[in-house]
C-alpha cells in the first residue's frame, strides 16, 4: 500500500459504520433496507444520518429484503442513486431480485455482511451467502479491513455507474470480524469524494413521463441472447474500469488496493496461498513469520470474485511450485468456490498443483496456526508430497 497522501480525520469505527459512512459520502437519494444481524448497525446509522439532517435522502423501512431490493431497483430504474445492505438470510431472500438489478443494468451498491446461511442457523461469518449469488450478474468485492470497506463503497459507485459497466455491486465484509470490530478509519473528505464521484445521471434507464421509456419488458427469445451477451460484456469491461478506478482513488486518496487482486511477498515465492476476506490479514502475518524462517511463501488476496481475475492470477502464479486456495464456503459435491474458479482460470496455463482449503465455516476462528498448516502442506506439496484436493482445516475427526 502506498503512503497516505491526504490526512483527514481518523475515527475508531466498526465495519458497519464504515459501510454506512461510505454511503453517506456517496449521497444516495434512496435507501431501502431491512435489518439483520450483523448488518443492523448499517441501517441504524443510515437512519440516524437522515434523522440528523446529514443526508438528504428517503429512507424506506420496508417489510423485507425482497422489498428492499425491489425498491432500490424501482428507484434506480427511475433515475436516482440508491443504497441498501444485507446479510445471509436477507440476501437469500433477495436472490430473485438480484437478477433483475443486473439484468436491467442498475448500478446499485450493496454492502453484504457475510454471515452463515441456515441451517444450522448461526450469525457468524461464512461466505455461503454471497457465493451462491455469483451467477446473478453482480460484481463482488471482498474486504480485508474497515478502511477498505469505506473506500470500496465509494469506489463501488464509481465502478458500477461507469457507462461501460452499469452493473450492481456487492461490497462484502466478514460478519463481526469487521462488522462489529472497531479500528481507526480515515473517514474521507466530502468535497474530495464529490470530486471523485459525480452525481448519477442515467441515459439507459429512467422513468420520465416527458420522455417515456419501457424498462423491464417481457422479451421473447429473439432478444435475450443479446441481452445476456451485453451483461457479459459489461462484466468484462469492469476489469479495466476497476483498474482505472483503483488508480484514480490511489491518486486522490493515497490508498492503492491493487485492483482485482492484491499480492504480498510474491516476488520469489515458491508456494502461495490465495485468500479472500479478513483471513488475508492473518495470512500476511503468517507469511512474514515463514519468511523469517527462510521459507519462500507468498500471498494472493482475491479482492474481486466477479469479475473473476483470471488473467491476473495466471500472471501472479508464474514461477510457483504449488498454490493453495482458501475458501470460507463450499459448493457441496465439488469444493470451495474460489478454488474451483482458480483451477478453471489456470487451466492450460500451469501444471502446478492447485489445492483447496476450507476453514472458518459457520464463523469458526481461522487462527495463524490454521493458516500455518496450510502453508506447511503447500511446501510439502511443492516437494511432491501428496494431499487431498480439498482439505478441511480445524474440523474435528477430519485428518489435517
Amino acid at each position, binding site marked *: 500500500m502506498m503512503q497516505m497522501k491526504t490526512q483527514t480525520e481518523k475515527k475508531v469505527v466498526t465495519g458497519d459504520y464504515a459501510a454506512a459512512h461510505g454511503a453517506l459520502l456517496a449521497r444516495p437519494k434512496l435507501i431501502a433496507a431491512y435489518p439483520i444481524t450483523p448488518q443492523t448497525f448499517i441501517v441504524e446509522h443510515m437512519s440516524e444520518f437522515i434523522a440528523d439532517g446529514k443526508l438528504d435522502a428517503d429512507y424506506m423501512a420496508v417489510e423485507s429484503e425482497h422489498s428492499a431490493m*425491489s425498491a432500490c431497483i*424501482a428507484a434506480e430504474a427511475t433515475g436516482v442513486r440508491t443504497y441498501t445492505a444485507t446479510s445471509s438470510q436477507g440476501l437469500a431472500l433477495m436472490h430473485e431480485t438480484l437478477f433483475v438489478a443486473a439484468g436491467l443494468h442498475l448500478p446499485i451498491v450493496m454492502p453484504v455482511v457475510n454471515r452463515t446461511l441456515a441451517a444450522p442457523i448461526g450469525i457468524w461469518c461464512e461466505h455461503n451467502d454471497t457465493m451462491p449469488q455469483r451467477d446473478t450478474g453482480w460484481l463482488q468485492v471482498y474486504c480485508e479491513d474497515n478502511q477498505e470497506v469505506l473506500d470500496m463503497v465509494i469506489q463501488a459507485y464509481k465502478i458500477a455507474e461507469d457507462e461501460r459497466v452499469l452493473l450492481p455491486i456487492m461490497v462484502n465484509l466478514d460478519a463481526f470480524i469487521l462488522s462489529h470490530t472497531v479500528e481507526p478509519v480515515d473517514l474521507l473528505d466530502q468535497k474530495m469524494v464529490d470530486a471523485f464521484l459525480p452525481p448519477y445521471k442515467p441515459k439507459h434507464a429512467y422513468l420520465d*413521463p416527458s420522455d417515456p421509456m419501457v424498462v423491464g419488458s417481457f422479451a421473447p427469445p429473439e432478444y435475450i441472447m443479446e441481452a445476456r451477451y451485453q451483461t457479459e460484456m459489461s462484466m468484462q469491461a469492469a476489469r479495466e474500469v476497476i483498474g482505472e478506478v483503483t488508480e484514480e482513488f490511489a491518486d486522490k486518496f493515497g490508498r492503492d488496493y491493487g485492483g482485482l487482486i492484491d499480492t504480498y511477498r510474491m516476488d520469489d515465492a515458491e508456494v502461495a496461498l490465495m485468500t479472500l476476506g479478513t483471513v488475508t490479514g492473518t495470512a500476511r502475518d503468517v507469511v512474514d513469520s515463514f519468511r523469517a524462517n527462510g521459507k519462500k511463501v507468498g500471498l494472493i488476496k482475491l479482492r474481486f470474485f466477479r469479475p473473476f481475475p483470471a488473467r491476473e492470477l495466471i500472471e501472479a502464479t508464474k514461477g510457483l511450485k504449488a498454490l493453495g486456495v482458501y475458501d470460507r464456503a463450499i459448493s457441496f459435491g465439488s469444493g470451495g468456490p474460489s478454488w474451483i474458479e482458480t483451477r478453471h482460470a489456470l487451466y492450460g496455463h500451469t501444471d502446478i498443483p492447485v489445492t483447496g482449503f476450507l476453514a472458518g465455516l459457520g464463523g469458526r476462528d481461522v487462527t495463524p496456526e490454521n493458516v500455518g498448516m496450510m502453508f506447511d502442506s503447500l511446501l510439502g506439496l511443492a516437494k511432491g508430497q501428496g494431499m487431498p484436493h480439498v482439505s478441511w482445516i480445524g474440523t474435528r475427526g477430519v485428518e489435517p
Partner: protein
Amino acid sequence: MTTVKELPVQDYFTSGHTACPGCGGAMVARIAMKVFGPNTVVYHPASCMLIFSSTYPNNAFKVPFLHVLFENSAVCAAGIKRALNRLGKSDVNVVAFAGDGGTADIGLQALSGAAERNEDIIYIMYDNEAYMNTGIQRSSSTPFGAWTTTTPVGSVHAGKVEFKKDVPRIMMAHDVPYVATASIAYPTDFIKKLEKAKAKKGFRYLQVLAPCPTGWKAESSKMVELARMAVETGIWTLMEYEDGKYTVNRTPKFSPVQDYLKAQGRFKHLTPEDIKKIQDWVKSKWEKDKALEQVYK
C-alpha cells in the same frame, strides 16, 4: 363528475395488445389510463396484463412502464414515486396494475408494507379471480365453488372449497386514505373512483372486478353483463372507504345468485346446496357491509 362522453378521446393504453377478446382487465387498463392521463408511470407485476401489454419491443402503454417481478408491485411503485419526488417530479401519478394473485396472495406482504407506510401510490387490483396467466389456477380471491385448474371438478371435491378473501377489508385495516371496489359495469361509479384515487394523496387501493372470458368459461360478449350481475346479486359490493368513512355505493337488487353463476362455465357443476351456500354468504356479507357503515361513519 366525469361522464363516459367526457372522457378523453386519446388512449394511453393502445390497441394492438394481445389480450383475449373481451378481456375485462384490458377494459380496466384502458379506462383507467384515460383518467390518469400522460403524466403517469405504470408498474406491472407478472400477470396476464404484463404479457398482453408488453412484448418487447412493443408496449401498449404510452407512458413510462416498469416491470420487476411478481410479488413486489406495491413496493416497486413506491420506489418509483419516491425517486420521482427526489427528481422534482412530484406531480406524476404512479400506478400499479396487479392481478388478484399478485395482490391477495404472493404480493400481500409488499402491499401491506406499502399501505402501512402510506406510500403515495395508486394500486389497482384487476380481479379476474384466478391466476389466469399461468392457466387459470385458484387464488385466494377465487370465489367459493369455482372451477379452476387447481380446484378441478372431481368425484370427491368439486371446485374451490374456501370463500373469497376480502382484500378491501384488509386494506381498510391499514387505515389508508382511500379503498374502493368497482365494477366495469358501472361506468360513472368506476370513473368517479378513478378520479378520486387520482386526486388523493397517500396510499390508494382500488379493486375492480374484471371478468375473464377464458377463465370464467363465459361468452366474451357477456363480460359487462357478468360484471353487472355480480353487483346486482350482491356477490360483489361497490364500496368506498374514504378518510375513515365507509360507504356502500349501491344497494343491490339481490337477484338470485343463480343467474350469475349459471352464465359461467366455471360454476356449471354447482349443486343446489352449493348455490344456497353462496346465497347465504351474500346475505351475511351484506349484513357485515351495513354494520361497517355504522362503525365507520
